[in-house]
């Protein structure tokens, strides 16, 4: 099956404008809140204001008597609707503690925002009024907010049925780690806190359920990234025959992982629709979503590297505590595991150890947020490489070059046990340094240092790697994930020469309709405009594993490529029959089969589609029609990489820090649509800068979210960000025949350490060696102030002696 790999590329790699745009630009696209149907009722959710409380009584009578209110339910009222709790599909260890997670809490509320009652009314406003009129009697309980406190003796337990708040401990150890660390010339150990983040897709979540009671059928429209996973898991939660549930993801306004889940509101809307026999709708308010939609990250990382006296890495040891929040959502426990193999980054070493402890707290559950596990790993390794360089008084570029894995074009095993598909880390760094003007920037930095400028310049580097193309099903199985990692595509060649593609991926901004059209147009020799791509409806696209983890092109796109291969294989048989030659005598290029040596004797795929449809003269044993489905299970992950360079300007009086220059050179293998790839990089960088400098979900001691709306949680605007310089190197992946790797998360993974390294680089002369994200103005101000206050003391310490540990010598883990 190699016919199409060599085919002429007319659209792939070229500048094709997106097919998706016209609808989106003119306001005609149909998002979840645009869906309305006769008789539709509105669902409102009553949420616990307390992070931890016993629910004594839920009195819905006042709400039920309000105008327009059709029903009001407590958790107990709805208990009979659930055959099981909401799903956690990734029990990462055999002895993991998985609490029952009912869509509506019945006995206790375990985070501020936990649903405790449901109201159903005729209008949006009446539903809002009714949620205010449900009287819930709570007894507030002690809360656990801090992960380390949660693991302490005698800590309040989030779940009484377990003996502690430790959800799981997951280990990976390769090589003799203790031996390597004991015998290392240099050891650097630091502690990083990766803040809790709120994803903030600009479209809030929403659900519409349309029941057809006589048939026992339900259509669930949801602003989701994962219609297929949602259908299967929700059928189990609701005790509903899976074939009776159809899930449709309409136009979806961004996800970033936040819509990669199975949420209480999805279960509630189907349950309420089933009870009332009426269509129902729930639309999330933004500030409601801050409590009800998963958060990301919230991880404490103890990172340790051992190296020889030149700085050549020998070992890596990472020890994480990851905040699960109050419950396990779809893949909550598995998020740190997605980074578990990447703590040595693009550098090699002999010994590798990773441990993660999952911890329950009385906070909103965490789960996948753009990058998921890989930003944590990249942040840890890229921060500590800078510290290692500082300790050895080397340039951060030099220490990286010393440790890079040499360029390779065949898959090779690395220390953590993964097999990287291909890589050339020097190449992207070289290109980035040139674009950045590294030497001139260093000279400018020196000028500012020498003149004692209030505004200092810092330069940060991040040479990152990530693991994409989730995922080989066997590997997922060995990691105890409950589903496979394959994806599917169908190509249907119509007798009129047009083509319908059905994909199992579920785009929400990524432009699959365009990229998939490019692939099929080139491989089958049809016009780009003549390819229709269908997605996001489990009735139309029954096979699929959806969109997350930069998997769509490198799994779903490859399924499409192989489906095209199947089409060509069948078409070739028919073409040979019609041209009265043997298949071996045919050549295929760009949709045309021609007889070798007699190119005027030829058939196009479109012509074959017509003859396959008329079926008047098919070879013996050939089924009519020209349609093929392929399900692709990737043999390996893909490993995009790259080099990001960032310059920040720090106002040393106020702490205000701005990104002045940002250069990204990414290597995502071969590229189908350069504009889409660049767009993904831009957005990823912006999100990474946001993570590094602006955003953090902050709770008070009672577990109340203080950054409770978009007005206080600081998603940056255009006014806070610069333009970005982007470029690429292309090292084809060896995992798949298109040589593609994925680009959805690269920017978000690469940017945070580039920004923080730059900020620390600006402040190093003042004695600031550590800050946690976000490096907000106050944090920067406090770090400078602390460093100045401790000037004499820290100068007296030997922070470069082996084993002393920069982190422990310089205000460990703290900056305030």
């Amino acid at each position, binding site marked *: 099956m190699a016919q199409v790999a060599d085919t002429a590329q007319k659209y792939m790699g070229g500048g094709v404008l997106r097919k998706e745009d016209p609808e989106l630009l003119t306001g005609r696209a149909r998002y979840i809140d645009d869906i309305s149907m006769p008789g539709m009722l509105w669902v409102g959710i009553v949420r616990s204001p307390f992070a931890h409380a016993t629910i004594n009584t839920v009195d819905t009578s006042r709400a039920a008597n309000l105008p327009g209110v059709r029903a009001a339910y407590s958790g107990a009222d709805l208990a009979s609707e659930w055959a099981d709790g909401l799903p956690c599909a990734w029990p990462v260890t055999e002895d993991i503690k998985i609490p029952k997670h009912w869509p509506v809490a019945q006995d206790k509320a375990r985070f501020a925002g936990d649903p405790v009652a449901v109201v159903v009314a005729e209008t949006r406003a009446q539903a*809002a*009024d009714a949620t205010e009129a449900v009287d819930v009697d709570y007894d507030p309980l002690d809360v656990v907010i801090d992960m380390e406190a949660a693991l302490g003796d005698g800590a309040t337990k989030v779940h009484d049925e377990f003996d502690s708040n430790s959800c799981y401990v997951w280990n990976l150890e390769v090589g003799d780690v203790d031996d390597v660390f004991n015998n290392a010339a240099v050891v650097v150990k630091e502690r990083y806190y990766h803040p809790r983040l709120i994803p903030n897709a600009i479209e809030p979540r929403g659900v519409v359920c349309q029941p057809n009671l006589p048939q026992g059928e339900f259509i669930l429209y949801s602003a989701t990234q994962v219609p297929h996973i949602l259908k299967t898991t929700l059928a189990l939660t609701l005790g509903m025959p899976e074939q009776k549930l159809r899930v449709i993801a309409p136009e979806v306004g961004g996800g970033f992982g936040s819509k990669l889940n199975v949420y209480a509101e999805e279960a509630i809307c189907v349950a309420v629709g089933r009870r009332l026999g009426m269509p129902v709708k729930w639309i999330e308010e933004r500030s409601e979503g801050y409590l009800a939609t998963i958060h990301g990250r919230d991880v404490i990382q103890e990172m340790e590297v051992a190296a020889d006296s030149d700085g050549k890495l020998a070992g890596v040891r990472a020890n994480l505590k990851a905040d699960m929040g109050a419950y396990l959502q779809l893949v909550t426990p598995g998020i740190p595991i997605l980074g578990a193999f990447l703590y040595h980054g693009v550098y090699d070493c002999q010994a590798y150890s990773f441990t993660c402890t999952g911890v329950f707290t009385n906070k909103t559950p965490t789960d996948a947020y753009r990058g998921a596990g890989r930003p944590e790993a990249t942040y840890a390794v890229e921060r500590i490489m800078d510290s290692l360089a500082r300790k050895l008084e080397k340039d951060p570029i030099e220490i990286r070059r010393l440790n890079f894995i040499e360029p390779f074009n065949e898959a090779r095993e690395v220390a953590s046990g993964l097999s990287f598909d291909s890589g050339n880390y020097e190449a992207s760094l070289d290109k980035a340094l040139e674009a950045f003007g590294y030497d001139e920037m260093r000279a400018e930095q020196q000028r500012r240092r020498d003149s004692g400028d209030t505004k200092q310049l810092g330069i940060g580097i991040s040479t990152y790697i990530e693991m994409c193309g989730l995922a080989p099903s066997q590997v997922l199985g060995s990691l105890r994930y409950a589903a496979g990692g394959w994806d599917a595509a169908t190509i249907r060649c119509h007798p009129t020469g047009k083509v319908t593609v059905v994909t199992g991926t579920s785009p929400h901004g990524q432009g699959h309709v365009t990229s998939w059209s490019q692939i099929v147009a080139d491989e089958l020799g049809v016009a780009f405009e003549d390819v229709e791509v269908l997605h996001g409806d489990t009735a139309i696209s029954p096979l699929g594993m959806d969109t997350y983890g930069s998997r769509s092109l490198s799994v779903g796109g490859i399924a499409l490529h192989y489906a095209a291969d199947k089409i060509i294989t069948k078409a070739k048989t028919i073409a040979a029959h019609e041209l009265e030659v043997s298949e071996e005598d045919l050549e295929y290029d760009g949709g045309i089969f021609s007889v070798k040596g007699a190119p005027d004797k030829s058939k196009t795929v479109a012509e074959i589609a017509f003859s396959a449809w008329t079926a008047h003269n098919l070879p013996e044993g050939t089924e009519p029609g020209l349609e093929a489905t392929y399900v692709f299970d990737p043999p390996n992950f893909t490993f995009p990489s790259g080099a990001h360079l960032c310059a920040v300007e720090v106002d040393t009086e106020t702490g205000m820090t701005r990104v002045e220059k940002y250069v990204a050179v990414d290597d995502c293998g071969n590229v189908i649509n350069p504009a889409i790839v660049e767009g993904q990089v831009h957005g990823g960088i912006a999100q990474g800068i946001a993570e590094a400098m602006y955003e953090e979900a902050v709770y008070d001691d009672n577990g109340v979210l203080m*950054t409770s709306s978009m007005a206080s949680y600081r998603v*940056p605007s255009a006014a*806070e960000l610069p333009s970005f310089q982007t470029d690429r190197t292309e090292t084809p992946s060896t995992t798949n025949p298109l040589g593609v790797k994925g680009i959805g998360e690269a920017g978000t993974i690469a940017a945070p350490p580039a920004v923080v390294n730059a900020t620390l680089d600006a402040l190093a002369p003042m004695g600031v060696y550590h800050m946690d994200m976000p490096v*907000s103005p*106050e944090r920067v*101000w406090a770090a400078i102030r602390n460093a100045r206050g401790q000037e004499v003391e820290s100068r007296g310490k030997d922070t470069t002696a082996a084993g002393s540990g920069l982190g422990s010598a310089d205000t460990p883990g703290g900056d305030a």
Partner: protein
Amino acid sequence: MIPASFEYERADSSDHALELLDRHGEEAKLLAGGHSLLPMMRLRLATPAVLIDVGRLTDLSYVRDDGDAIAIGALTCHEDIKDSDVLKQHCGIVAHTAGEVGDPQVRHLGTIGGSIAHGDPASDLPTVMLALDAQFVVRSSGGGRTLAASNFFSGLFETALEPTNLLTEVRVPKLSGGWSYQKFHHRAQDWAIVGVAAVQHNGGAAVALTNMSDVPMRAAGVEQALASGSDAATAATEAAQNTSPPSDPFGSAEYRRDLAKVLTRRALQEAMSS
């Protein structure tokens, strides 16, 4: 969320507005541009029984050269103030600071009267008014009075306005010297973490602070130091005197006090150099 239900009255004149205020008393809230009130109502942090919409009182939307002073109608939107040539010429700090409020969309509807009457200590224009010793013209059905900015802001979201009062005009002086408003915020559209207004007028300097207390406040210590001959940098070190700034996720009180000093120095230097 959708706001809780309320009764809506639209005033078609100032007299009508005052009549409606008298009728509804404390149950009523005035709605001008709505950009302070409506977000609070959407989160149901405010649930007024009656809204009196004064947005149609276009006769209260003006910027006029009024001899010694510039008169600004209370319903003039921030965008018009920002673009006012009269203000740019005679009292540039007001035009400049109006352009720092919120974002363009907010400035198209938000009004100077609304900003001042809301009494939010994180708001920029009240601070500028305080530094300018502005006068506020207030009407009630019983007559009118003029309040000095220095006696106007009485507490967190509290002012000297009574429930039956309508703020109709803001009067600011024609400045004889330089000015500066230093707004320190993390995102462009955010409220100030700290703001400092400095104006030079009639041979003296006035300095006022945003978000350093429950109310906008004058930096008396700075002003005294300047009056007794200190230079800007020295005087600015007094900026945190008698302040009681909030502590929240974006700034501890200690940080704000330090920022006030830095920003005061910068404001004074800019005001004195222009």
